[in-house]
């Protein structure tokens, strides 16, 4: 009896997941726009620095996919918030559904689009590299011309995916909370994104986030993020399970 019930839940979740993959494909379009925008900005606004001994000054402009990564983080955050809005939630009622299956299919969907974003982000470093080589009017610095070794790219791809999952869980929680208290819609982005950026830039303080960004072991970071995401997703499932059927 127990296994039969779980099977049914699995089937429902799978159907909803497949439906969402196709139905919410607008998210992919916006992902393309956001990443292309990020690549464009990366070409224009690079970091860099210079060093001089008085006679000779060496200046170096740097390019990387960091901006594309930040843009994609914001994209996944917004995408996960939107999944909790009424418009998206009501679509689930076209299926035989429960709150649990709806949340599970949403989580699967978020992991899938995170993986898609991870793949395109990792590959976009090559496109950015070629564009930089094409348009940069300065020579390439010796030893500074590669998007990374295959091993480094794999590692960064894994890290991208982990951060996307973490941010999607944060967004999903934020969206869920915002459905309960509308005032949180304005407060949450400030608390979760703007405030940490402000603190990190102006004061050099990395509240809470250092728990993740200061972790030098990929595997421990993975455990931390998966554990955190599980708590966040689990929290929102519990929160909504105690609410009325269709609010």
């Amino acid at each position, binding site marked *: 009896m127990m296994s039969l019930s779980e099977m049914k839940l699995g089937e429902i979740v799978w159907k909803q997941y497949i439906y969402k993959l196709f*139905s919410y*494909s*607008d*998210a992919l*379009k*916006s992902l*393309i726009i*956001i990443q292309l925008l990020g690549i464009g900005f990366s070409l224009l606004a690079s970091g*860099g*620095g210079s*060093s*001089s*001994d*008085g*006679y*000779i*000054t*060496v*200046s*170096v*402009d*740097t*390019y*990387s*996919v*960091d901006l594309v*990564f930040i*843009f994609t983080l*914001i994209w996944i955050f*917004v995408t996960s918030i939107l999944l909790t809005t009424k*418009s998206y939630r009501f679509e689930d009622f076209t299926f035989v559904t429960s709150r649990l299956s709806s949340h599970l299919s949403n989580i699967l969907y978020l992991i899938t689009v995170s993986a898609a974003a991870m793949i395109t982000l990792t*590959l976009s470093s*090559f496109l950015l*590299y*070629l564009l*930089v080589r094409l348009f*940069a009017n*300065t*020579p*390439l*610095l*010796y*030893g*500074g*011309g*590669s998007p990374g070794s295959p091993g480094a790219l794999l*590692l*960064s791809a894994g*890290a*991208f995916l982990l*951060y996307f999952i973490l941010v999607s869980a944060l967004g999903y929680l934020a969206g869920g909370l915002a459905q309960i208290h509308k005032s949180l819609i304005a407060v949450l982005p400030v608390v979760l*994104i703007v405030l940490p*950026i*402000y603190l990190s*830039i*102006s004061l050099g303080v990395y509240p809470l986030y250092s728990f993740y*960004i*200061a*972790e*030098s072991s990929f595997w421990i970071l993975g455990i931390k993020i998966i554990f955190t995401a599980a708590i966040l997703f689990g929290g929102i499932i519990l929160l909504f399970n105690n609410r009325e059927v269709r609010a």
Partner: protein
Amino acid sequence: MMVLNVFIMIMFLSMLFLGIFYLLSKRKSASKKRVTSKRAISLFGGYTAVLFLAMCVYYVLPQDETAGRDADFNSNEEEMYSEIDEFERLAFEGEIDQIDEKFLIKAQNFRYEGDRMELNIPQLENNPVNVIIKKIEDSADQVEVRYYKAPLRVNGVDISDQIAEEVDIYEEEGRIAISQEMHYDFSFHQFNESFVLSQFNDDSSNRGSGYSFSFRNGTQILYLSIPENVEIDGLEEEFIYYLD
């Protein structure tokens, strides 16, 4: 200025946030969704294909001259630095004759009969000229001046060929001067791995800095062989080394 930058960044991210929110919250009817979903998936497939193609082009493209220098840099970095260390060792130990001629920028001999010489050398805070003096008993009033300089290296690569060392050494009434009118600006670009990756590096000191390169403007050595009775003035003692 920093507050302004933070404000601009926050405004920009907020606008981006709202833009994405607007873009994603435009919901369509079910029939329209079916059409657009196919289009969106095709578009995404096309985008991924373009990115994949970029990766293939990156790996297929032949390495250019600069990349060739990369290879030299990677394989010979230790050798290059040990060469400079050897040059410095020979200079400070007075083994001037054994220094590789490629480090010699200018050499000059002249006759001087006085007993006091003044050095007029522009000293850079980051790269001062080290003056090595050897007093010769039977020099017959001959002064030998040799100016050596290790190559300018950026990330270990010698780029001395891109600068013209316009160094002039002259003596005038007991005053030895070096004029070095040389101001060069080198601009490069580099492609960094994502900062996300830097958290897994053992050396976290450079985390998030966004750029790093080594720039070594060569050690400067001025070797003076002077008559035994001549005293040298005009330079801080910390940069003067007398050989036995």
